């Protein structure tokens, strides 16, 4: 615990106690006076509430006391505090999130939640942290007060996070958002039931000097629900003269999500509305005190936030009806969530392109600006579209911004609707509309592309990934309006190719393989529970083959008994052994007990047990107890009641083997009963073909069938568990995902066969989850190999040429070959210092001669490859062909094959060009120069 600011004591901010034990609530929770009192309570009461300090801890307790006073329900058991630690330089610093719940009123929606959040810690360089973020905390409390008076349909979780601010420690900056990340990993309400996050970070200093609400940062996630909530709330709270908010999802400033507590839940697919303002002032400075919070602004903003919560909480459709599944791919499995979040990174293969586009960002900005200017300076374009573009821009302060684009889009929608009203055969009526549509689309494309690109502040940000799409828009718009010259020598064909999916195949497969390791353990443990729940509870090991023997023995014994081919001897009752066998059969079969007991009862007639007990029980007390247990078992047959009964029965019968005998006699079977057979199975087991024959002959026996079902599930679990490397917590390297899926499917089928529907359903969910990964496994392997090969090719200096070819050729085989070549060339290059050293020694033996010869051949091959790489031409290709003998001499048959393949690939590229570039008419194969021109800008510059 660090030392921090001194708690000066917070003033009470909640109004007088309510009548009849009701919580005390202010008359106007969202009024400026109440909000300022709340800000004051935290900002002045707990200055320097930095994470890990005593003041920080007390500020959390103060927030908890406020939630309690409002009447919220504690969200962490009977506490409002969610404690966690932040590991900084090996030291665990304590922190606390504060959370309370207001239950919803609609029985159908009350199990869904709106999360209203802010952070209560302050940054190190500030003092009061009034705007950042006592203002957001005041918003949380005020909204809670308002909703406590009029609870909405959905439940609401109010939470303030600790550790949002980053810390400098040991000369290193430690990024923050720790409390919200902890919450995402350990949510207090189910993520899958979290309909919306409303996060507030600095709401006390909204700048409306220019009179437009569009200047406020308010961001909805990409989800249409969050977007609708924000739009409706904004409309409902608009003041006269204000315009609607502009924080809609397409804007690249969505990156603002990633500097606040909204990020962790946003990444997990929770619909999010994020409120963030005041960035034009230095919020991390001592000046961020009460004087910086503007009463009327915080009130206005809090009302907007409150309205968002109301809109979200009272929306009549459930999450499933809206088609929203927060929590990502596999909500019930935390590991995939963490990895999915990590998978948002740009794949390595695309990083090079991203870097390239980033380096040319100034060119794109200049060109798009010039394009937009050309659009505005020539009125004919707007006239052709039937829109007064100049007036639109003028109405928006002379700036080309989103509202202008929105107006053009609205015009586009109107034209499209009008076009649909025209009969398709009426070409004369359609053509003028088409011309207008074409011009409108051109304008829309240019504005959309230009606005987006102009807004990018720095290269390398994640939103650079959208640049190809935006460049495509610019290209298309320019072409439609005849303005393509503005983009000449700036945007090339390869630039507009969209980036690959954000998670690359090998990364996705890696994630899947790691994730599944947990499943092996889970199913293994479930199967283990069938054999011994007590041991299963104490061990993290899954089942092993040896465990199957116990079940095999039971099956065999029962089969022998059922077929009359048994060799079983009568023996004394041994409760310990019996207990183990019964446990194996009964106690682990959760959810299937009734079915199992039903089978069991058909053969063993529980009523007989109950009857015999009345005569043989050693004492009245035990007799009564066993009788009650038997009656309970008969009344409600289940695994639990059966186990309880049998355990007690045989414990009491331990010293009375005759009783067991008489039981069998009474049942009139005239041979060892199932219980006795199972008991004795532990003492004598026969193996081999005879056993299998016995079991097969008894296949119709209910007991054998039941035990066989259990055996099949345990066996499937054993097989599944064996596919994992438990130490490394992943699938074994020699095992494919297809094999894992087959094992999972088998476990699911056997669980279902056993009657354990819940277990089967759970396992089945994993099978469904895994399915899309199967198709990625092949590409992933090739991708991983290619990556290594490309690295080797790059090391040898041939990456640029061969990776370009590899992009165009199916299977990326050329990339692999390039890697092999690179590896070989590096090996030969390593000969040079060795040969030089030998030569320096004056040696002129065969070894030196061989090395020198190899180096000479290498020079020839390298020369040919370098020529092809740096100045590709038919002549360079011919030189490479001419170097073929040296190539073969250096690299043997593999090398010869590689070169032949390479030359074939080159021919294939020529054919591709003929087909894809439409240049075949020129006659003859195209040169590599043409290929390069087709592939990217190198050929054009």
């Amino acid at each position, binding site marked *: 615990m660090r030392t921090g600011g001194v708690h000066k004591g917070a003033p009470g901010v909640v109004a007088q106690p309510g009548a009849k034990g009701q919580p005390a609530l202010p008359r106007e929770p969202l009024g400026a006076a109440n909000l300022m009192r709340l800000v004051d309570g935290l900002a002045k009461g707990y200055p320097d509430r930095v994470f890990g300090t005593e003041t920080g801890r007390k500020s959390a307790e103060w927030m908890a006391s406020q939630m309690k006073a409002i009447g919220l329900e504690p969200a962490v058991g009977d506490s409002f505090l969610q404690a966690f630690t932040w590991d900084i330089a090996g030291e665990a610093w304590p922190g606390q999130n504060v959370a309370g719940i207001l239950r919803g009123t609609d029985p159908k929606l009350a199990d869904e939640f709106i999360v209203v959040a802010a952070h209560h810690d302050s940054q190190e360089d500030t003092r009061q942290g009034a705007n950042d973020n006592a203002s957001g905390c005041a918003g949380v409390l005020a909204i809670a007060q308002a909703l406590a008076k009029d609870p909405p349909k959905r439940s609401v979780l109010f939470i303030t996070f600790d550790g949002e601010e980053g810390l400098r420690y040991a000369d290193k900056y430690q990024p923050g958002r720790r409390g919200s990340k902890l919450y995402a990993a350990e949510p207090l309400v189910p993520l899958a039931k979290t309909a919306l996050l409303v996060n507030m970070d600095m709401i006390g200093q909204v700048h409306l000097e220019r009179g437009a609400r569009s200047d406020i940062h308010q961001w909805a996630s990409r989800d249409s629900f969050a977007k609708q909530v924000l739009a409706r709330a904004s409309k409902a709270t608009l003041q006269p003269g204000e315009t609607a908010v502009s924080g809609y999802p*397409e804007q690249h400033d969505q990156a603002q999500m990633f500097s606040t507590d909204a990020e962790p839940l946003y990444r997990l697919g929770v619909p999010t509305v994020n409120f963030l303002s005041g960035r034009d002032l230095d919020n991390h400075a001592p000046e961020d005190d009460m004087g910086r919070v503007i009463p009327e602004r915080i009130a206005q903003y809090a009302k907007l936030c409150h309205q968002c919560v109301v809109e979200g909480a009272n929306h009549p459709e459930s999450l499933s009806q809206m088609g929203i599944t927060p929590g990502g791919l596999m909500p019930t499995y935390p590991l995939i969530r963490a990895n999915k979040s990590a998978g948002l990174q740009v794949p390595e293969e695309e990083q090079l392109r991203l870097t390239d586009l980033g380096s040319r960002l100034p060119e794109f900005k200049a060109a798009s600006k010039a394009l937009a200017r050309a659009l505005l300076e020539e009125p004919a374009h707007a006239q052709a579209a039937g829109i007064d573009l100049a007036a639109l821009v003028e109405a928006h302060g002379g700036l080309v911004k989103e509202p202008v684009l929105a107006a053009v889009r609205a015009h586009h929608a109107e034209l499209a609707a009008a076009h649909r*009203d025209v009969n*398709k055969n009426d070409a004369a009526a359609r*053509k003028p509309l088409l011309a207008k549509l074409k011009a409108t*689309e051109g304008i*829309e*494309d240019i504005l959309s592309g230009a606005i987006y690109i102009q807004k990018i502040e720095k290269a390398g940000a994640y939103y650079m990934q959208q640049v190809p799409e935006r460049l495509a828009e610019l290209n298309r718009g320019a*072409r439609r309006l005849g303005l393509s010259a503005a983009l000449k020598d700036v945007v090339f064909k390869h630039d507009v190719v*969209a980036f690959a999916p*954000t998670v690359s195949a090998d990364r996705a497969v890696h994630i899947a393989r790691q994730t599944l390791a947990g499943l092996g353990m889970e199913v293994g443990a479930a199967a283990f529970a069938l054999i011994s729940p007590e041991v299963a509870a104490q061990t993290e090991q899954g089942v092993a083959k040896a465990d199957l023997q116990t079940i095999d023995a039971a099956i065999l014994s029962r089969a022998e008994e059922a077929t009359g081919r048994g060799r079983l001897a009568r023996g004394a009752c041994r409760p310990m052994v019996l207990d183990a066998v019964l446990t194996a059969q009964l106690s682990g079969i959760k959810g299937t007990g009734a079915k199992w007991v039903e089978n069991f009862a058909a053969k063993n007639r529980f009523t007989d047990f109950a009857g015999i007990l009345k005569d043989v029980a050693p004492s009245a007390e035990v007799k009564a107890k066993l009788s009650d247990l038997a009656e309970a078992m008969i009344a409600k047959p289940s695994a639990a009641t059966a186990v309880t009964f049998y355990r007690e029965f045989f414990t009491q019968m331990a010293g009375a083997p005759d009783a067991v005998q008489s039981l069998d006699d009474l049942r009139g079977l005239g041979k060892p009963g199932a219980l006795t057979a199972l008991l004795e199975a532990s003492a004598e087991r026969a193996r081999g073909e005879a056993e299998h024959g016995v079991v097969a002959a008894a296949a119709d026996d209910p007991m054998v069938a039941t035990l066989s079902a259990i055996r099949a599930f345990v066996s499937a679990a054993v097989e599944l568990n064996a596919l994992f490397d438990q130490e490394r917590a992943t699938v074994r390297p020699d095992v494919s995902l297809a094999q894992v899926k087959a094992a999972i499917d088998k476990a699911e089928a056997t669980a279902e066969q056993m009657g354990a529907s819940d277990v089967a359903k759970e396992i089945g969910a994993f099978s469904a989850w895994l399915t899309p990964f199967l198709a990625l496994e092949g590409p992933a392997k090739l991708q991983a190999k290619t990556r290594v090969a490309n690295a080797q090719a790059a090391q040898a200096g041939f990456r640029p040429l061969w990776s370009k070819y590899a992009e165009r050729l199916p299977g990326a085989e050329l990339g692999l070959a390039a890697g092999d070549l690179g590896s070989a060339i590096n090996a030969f290059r390593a000969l040079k210092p060795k040969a030089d050293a030998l030569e320096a020694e004056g040696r002129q033996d065969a070894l030196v001669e061989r090395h020198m010869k190899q180096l000479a051949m290498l020079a020839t091959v390298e020369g040919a490859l370098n020529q092809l790489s740096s100045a590709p031409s038919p002549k360079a290709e011919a030189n490479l062909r001419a170097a073929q003998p040296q190539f073969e001499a250096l690299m043997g048959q593999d090398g010869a094959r590689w070169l032949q393949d390479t030359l074939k690939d080159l021919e294939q590229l020529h054919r591709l060009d003929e087909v894809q570039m439409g240049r075949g008419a020129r006659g003859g194969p195209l040169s590599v120069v043409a290929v390069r021109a087709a592939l990217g800008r190198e050929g054009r510059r």
Partner: protein
Amino acid sequence: MMTMTPEVEQTIIHYYPQRALVSPLDNADISWDYDTDNRSLKALLVDLENLDPDLRPGTRCNYEISEELVLFEKVRLQLSYIGPFAALNYGLPQDLDEDGRERVRRLESMLAKHGFQILNDDTLDEVVPWIQQGTIQNATVWNCLFVHPDA
């Protein structure tokens, strides 16, 4: 490998009788006999707007033989004017999250309900061998049903 269905083939033959990729609008001899008054299209639009009230027109079309709609901000639906054919996110990265996939599933089922055939990328990329003239050679199904080049 041919993936074109007979319906697609017949539609293309009907609208491009001269084996040239030129706008059917410029050929007075062609009868636009599919959904002439856009009734089917409009009925679909009503359902689509219920699915996403923020649906808006896209810009990848030329309105000669198809139109594009953008749903859920990132799903691009191309609807042909010359036959009951649709394309979803053609040529764009398929990086939908679970929400997105679920929505696409709902969209697909809605299109099927309205009798639209969704063509996959393999079919759309297939070269139509009998189109030998026009703006480009090697015209694909995409070009013939949805967007002529340089639109």
